[in-house]
């Protein structure tokens, strides 16, 4: 590839239109631009880089200000750069235009056939394809340590691995590898989403717990059923024994029944007596005085008057009354009069009635009318309750008598264990009921556990359905990993193969042009180590240039390589900005011999002091074009420089200004 022409309009320091033609002759393939320091050499090199790739070199000052200052003052807010170049026997023209207002640029490509320009679509991708930026970066060399390759050489690893991989065209394969890794990561995430191993284990543990609980519950149910059977059997056995006793004592059932009935009847009767007693007490309480008074009055009324009642009761009456009580053996309140009480009453006969009795008699006398009115019903009521009570007592006696008879029979039955057996039957029946209830609870719990186990097993089954999907994903991952491995192996092999080539090329150059017996070592990781044999300044700079030359020649050699994995490389003019700057005189003389055979076209930007006549003499027969980048300082003129600017064997006057701004003119040197 050769650049034939560059046309800049208001680009940076280049006001207006500048048209430069480059040396393209096969033998005279070098174009040199001479310029002072800060004389827009870098700007010019940048114009070429920017036109092709839309990027600038990293050391360009004020990179946002692309439009020339003077042009901006004339309200021109855009700049452009056009390059004509030939590539594989075809001619092309490209233009990149920058619009200051929008900060955007526009790129256009034309194919030129017999002077006719045909616009091409997708110019950017065409250029990207034939001049990969990541490769062509290495064709731009900046002598002051700022070139693309030197950044790799000055990093802490001093490794040129990345440049080598760039030149070999690893980018496509690396992008694919990154895509595959992303794919693997996505699939792994999907599988992680299932979290199968962990979930499955948890479920297996859960099922085991449920199964253990189920087994335990089943055992409990079984034990309970067995126990229930035992007590049922016990009940049946006991009932058989009872049957046998009943066979021997046909009345036993009757006796037991009757005993129970009698017991109940006796208890009932006792309760009835208690109730009847209460009734009697109630009636006596109500009518006691009436009865007493009736009797008392019936027998003593005629003898009592208010006058004598204060004294003693008539002795006869007193005696009769107490005798009546003693004879009856029972008080009108139905309380029995025991012998002791009878003795007391006996002693009271013919004694003075107590004050209390006297008062009572007075009260009776006072209530004479009331007593009289109730006297007819009171005895009957008292008699009724007494009669009822008496009857109940008689019935109780009869019941007890009958019970005593039955009791004897019952005792006999008890002696042969009949009652115990009955109790056993009764207890076992109760236990059967109780245990039956317990069994039901256990069975209900068992059903619940069975249901839980079913749910967990169904969940596990559905998880197993997912397994084929997971397995397929593992296959996908495995396949993607194999592709990555294939790529890695391929790249590693390419890396290894090329290392030997680079090393031999570098050392071949050194043996040809460097007389200091210097050598270079490159490790497997492409770490570069220079030998200590060199001397003078610019030691690392010449090595950087040397390695750049080797990389460029490698790229050019690989430009037509057809490779299934690596992309083909590229050829581009070799552009050098101040390559002599840091070199001592000895190394400067090596440089022309080193540079000339590298590329089909060389474009060199130097200051007049860097490339002396001596070095130029070595390049002389290859120089096709020479230009002076003459810097104009605009402002109040002050004085001429004492020494003129020498370039291309000519002298140019220089003027020092009290400048406010600079502009650069490009002058072709004949």
């Amino acid at each position, binding site marked *: 590839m050769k650049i034939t022409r560059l046309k800049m309009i208001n680009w940076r320091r280049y006001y207006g239109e500048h048209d430069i033609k480059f040396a393209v002759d096969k033998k005279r393939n070098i174009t040199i631009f001479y310029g002072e320091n800060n004389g827009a050499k870098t700007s010019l090199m940048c114009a070429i880089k920017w036109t092709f790739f839309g990027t600038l070199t990293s050391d360009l000052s004020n990179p946002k200000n692309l439009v020339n200052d003077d042009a901006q003052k004339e309200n021109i807010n855009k700049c452009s750069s056009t390059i004509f170049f030939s590539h594989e026997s075809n001619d092309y023209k490209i233009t990149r235009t920058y619009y200051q207002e929008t900060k955007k640029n526009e790129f256009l490509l034309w194919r030129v056939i017999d002077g006719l320009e045909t616009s091409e679509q997708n110019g950017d991708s065409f250029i*990207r*394809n034939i001049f990969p930026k990541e490769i062509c970066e290495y064709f731009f060399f900046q002598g002051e340590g700022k070139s693309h390759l030197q950044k790799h050489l000055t990093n802490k690893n001093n490794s040129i691995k990345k440049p080598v991989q760039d030149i070999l065209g690893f980018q496509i394969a690396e*992008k694919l590898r990154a895509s*595959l890794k992303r*794919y693997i990561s996505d699939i792994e995430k999907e599988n992680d989403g299932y979290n199968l191993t962990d979930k499955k284990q948890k479920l297996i543990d859960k099922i085991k717990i449920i199964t253990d609980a189920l087994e335990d519950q089943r055992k409990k149910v079984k034990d309970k059923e067995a126990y229930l059977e035992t007590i049922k059997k016990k009940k049946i056995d006991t009932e058989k024994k009872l049957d046998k006793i009943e066979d021997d004592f046909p009345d036993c059932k009757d006796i037991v029944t009757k005993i129970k009935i009698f017991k109940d009847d006796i208890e009932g009767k006792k309760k009835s007596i208690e109730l009847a007693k209460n009734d009697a007490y109630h009636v006596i309480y109500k009518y006691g005085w009436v009865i007493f008074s009736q009797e008392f009055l019936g027998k003593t009324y005629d003898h009592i008057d208010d006058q004598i009642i204060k004294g003693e009761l008539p002795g006869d009456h007193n005696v009769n009354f107490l005798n009546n009580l003693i004879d009856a053996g029972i008080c009108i309140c139905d309380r029995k009069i025991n012998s002791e009480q009878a003795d007391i009453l006996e002693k009271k006969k013919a004694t003075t009635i107590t004050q209390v009795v006297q008062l009572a008699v007075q009260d009776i006398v006072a209530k004479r009318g009331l007593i009289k009115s109730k006297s007819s019903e009171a005895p009957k009521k008292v008699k009724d309750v007494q009669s009822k009570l008496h009857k109940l007592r008689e019935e109780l006696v009869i019941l007890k008598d009958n019970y005593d008879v039955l009791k004897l029979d019952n005792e006999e039955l008890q002696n042969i264990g009949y009652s115990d057996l009955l109790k056993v039957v009764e207890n076992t029946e109760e236990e059967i009921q109780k245990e039956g209830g317990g069994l039901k609870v256990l069975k209900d719990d068992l059903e619940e556990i069975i249901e839980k186990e079913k749910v967990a097993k169904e969940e596990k089954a559905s998880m197993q359905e997912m397994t084929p999907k997971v397995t*397929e994903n593992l*296959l996908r991952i495995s396949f993607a990993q194999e592709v990555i491995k294939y790529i890695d192996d391929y790249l590693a092999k390419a890396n290894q193969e090329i290392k030997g080539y680079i090393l031999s090329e570098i050392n071949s150059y050194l043996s040809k042009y460097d007389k200091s017996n210097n050598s270079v070592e490159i490790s497997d990781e492409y770490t570069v180590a220079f030998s200590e044999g060199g001397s003078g300044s610019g030691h690392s700079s010449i090595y950087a240039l040397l390695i750049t030359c080797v990389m460029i020649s490698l790229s050019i050699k690989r430009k037509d390589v057809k490779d299934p*994995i690596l992309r083909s490389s590229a050829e581009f003019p070799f552009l050098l900005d101040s390559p002599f700057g840091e070199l001592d005189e000895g190394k400067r003389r090596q440089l022309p011999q080193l540079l000339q055979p590298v590329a089909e076209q060389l474009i060199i930007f130097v200051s007049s002091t860097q490339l002396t006549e001596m070095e130029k003499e070595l390049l002389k027969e290859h120089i096709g074009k020479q230009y002076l980048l003459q810097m104009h300082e605009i402002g109040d003129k002050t004085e001429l420089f004492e020494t003129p600017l020498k370039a291309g064997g000519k002298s140019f006057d220089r003027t020092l200004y009290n400048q406010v701004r600079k502009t650069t003119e490009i002058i072709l040197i004949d």
Partner: protein
Amino acid sequence: METMEAQLKKVWFEPERKSVEKATTELISAQKDNYFSDNKKSIQPEVQNTIEKFLEDYKKEKKR
């Protein structure tokens, strides 16, 4: 029973099949097209399609 790894090797690395090599070449080609395209898009669908295709091959081989 063959391990999954053995099965994979059989399907993907048989000399006459060269599945991995073929897949890599196809994917590199797709990646190249995308790399030089003005309308760049994700290569992921292409990766997915290629792998699915070879997964189908694997399944067929396994059935056989």
